[in-house]
């Protein structure tokens, strides 16, 4: 579609729509500096709730757990998912269609079904619920998304560069390390970034696969929200939003460097 000056009505609508998207989050951040505990109306500026947050042992433990799960699951799902993307984009093999359809499952089944399936599975093999089960589950839902992103990147990849490297005497390992991987690196990084944020964000699957002591940040936020609407939750949310902005910004910079 070409650019054609949108009508006044449409432009006004767009302004309203963006306000609708952003206003709740902006209000959330503003009220994290509110000195009134009940958080009903604005009373005065304070950083008290941020201090409170850093003394909250539950929040600190949950943060640690979340980061461990996110890092480990991102690393493993990125490696496994990238290999699958290479396989599907480059090769034909028996079981190709089945493998491809399995990768769509997380897109078309409700999360709650995947959550209870994993709960049933871990219960049946008597696996203690905890950080390990959360991480194993996160890897499972992350692999398909990594594969999807990396595959999209491989789409325009020119195979003749690899053949040239082979012709010049490089073996497949060197070719992969020096030619293939650097070329698809932006896609791999984008996939890893997606996996990291999905893992950071996940509530439903974590909820079913978490055990005592393995509370993650989304679970912690949920119980805080359920319990009371206090500025401490706002402060936690504001820091979370800030972190996401930093990670997204880094992703943008990385991608710009690559291209």
């Amino acid at each position, binding site marked *: *579609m070409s650019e054609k000056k949108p009508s006044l009505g449409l432009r006004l609508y767009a302004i309203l729509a963006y306000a609708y998207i952003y206003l709740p989050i902006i209000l959330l951040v503003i009220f994290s500096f509110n000195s009134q505990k009940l958080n009903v109306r604005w009373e005065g500026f304070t950083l008290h709730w941020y201090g409170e947050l850093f003394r909250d042992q539950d929040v600190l433990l949950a943060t640690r757990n979340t980061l461990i799960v996110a890092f480990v699951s991102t690393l493993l799902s990125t490696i496994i998912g990238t290999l*699958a993307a290479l396989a599907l984009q480059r090769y034909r093999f028996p079981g190709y269609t089945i*493998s491809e359809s399995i990768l769509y499952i997380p897109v078309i*089944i409700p999360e709650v079904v995947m959550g209870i399936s994993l709960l049933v599975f871990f219960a049946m093999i008597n696996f203690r619920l905890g950080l390990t089960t959360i991480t194993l589950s996160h890897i499972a839902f992350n692999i398909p998304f990594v594969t999807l992103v990396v595959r999209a990147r491989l789409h325009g990849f020119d195979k003749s560069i690899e053949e040239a490297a082979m012709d010049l005497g490089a073996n497949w390992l060197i070719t992969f390390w020096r030619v293939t991987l650097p070329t698809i690196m932006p896609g791999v990084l984008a996939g890893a970034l997606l996996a990291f944020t999905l893992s950071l964000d996940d509530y439903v699957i974590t909820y079913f696969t978490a055990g005592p002591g393995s509370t993650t940040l989304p679970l912690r936020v949920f119980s805080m929200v359920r319990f009371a609407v206090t500025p401490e939750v706002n402060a936690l949310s504001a820091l979370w939003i800030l972190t996401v902005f930093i990670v997204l910004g880094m992703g943008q910079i990385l991608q710009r460097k690559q291209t």
Partner: protein
Amino acid sequence: MQDTVNQKTKYRAPSILSRLREDPQSQGLALISPTFLYLMIFMILPMVLVVILSLLTRGPYGNVVYRLNLSNYTRLIDPLYLRILWFSLWTAGLTTILSVLIGYPLAYYIARSPRNQRSLLLFLILVPFWTNFIIRIYAWIMILRTEGLLNTFLINLGVIKVPLDILYTPTAVLIGMVYEFLPFMVLPLYTSLEKIENAQLEAAADLGAPPWKVFLRVTFPLSVPGMIAGSILVFIPAMGMFVVPDLMGGAKTILVGNLIRNQFLVARDWPFGASASMLLLLLTLAVTLLYTRKAGFGEELLV
């Protein structure tokens, strides 16, 4: 004799490695096998277990008794559960429709904007989506609750005298769900709108069609694949959602997702919870199939 054995070992020893080096089919299999095995163990096998579980019986202490029967499925026909099911379909359907109504003009606006601004405008839709979804629900709780920002604002303006009770109603659940899933609708809609060739629109205009007719006869039909993809991406998670009703819906709003969660973690009737999950899965698959059959689409789902 000695000779043949030697030949055999000589031939066999390098066989796997050399096959990996030369045969592309084995290379492909080697690359896909970690994913295949992992998803078989941690996605397919667990779902098969749930299917089996749905056919078993709950024991007296919330344990599972290995006696095959269909009673968990017949129990679902109870009016109580049918009402929950109907309410879930209604909520998910309305969420999808509202997302189309709100998202379509927005996607259209972005597709019509100057080329160099489009990715920024799209990025701005996605940014809130990257923040945690419970935080987004919390923002709306802050706004909607009885002593919340909306009521305070309206009372101070003098529009209302008594605060509105929006939070803990089905309306609140709808507000929360639409806010959560809107980006899923805008993205595929934008993709299909953006692809429309200008020549097609000009041709229609040259032939004398007024702008509204161009939209109705050219633009809209060409954006249907995006709308279908968006609807699937909104409908499926909305169907299984239990967090939004938990936090915003109050005790009265129970969706299938809540029912399943309660059977597994509160009532501890796993077989019945499993059969409810199967029903949810069948419903979402049926809706997806019905929808995709109506129009060919593919890449829109992958954005």
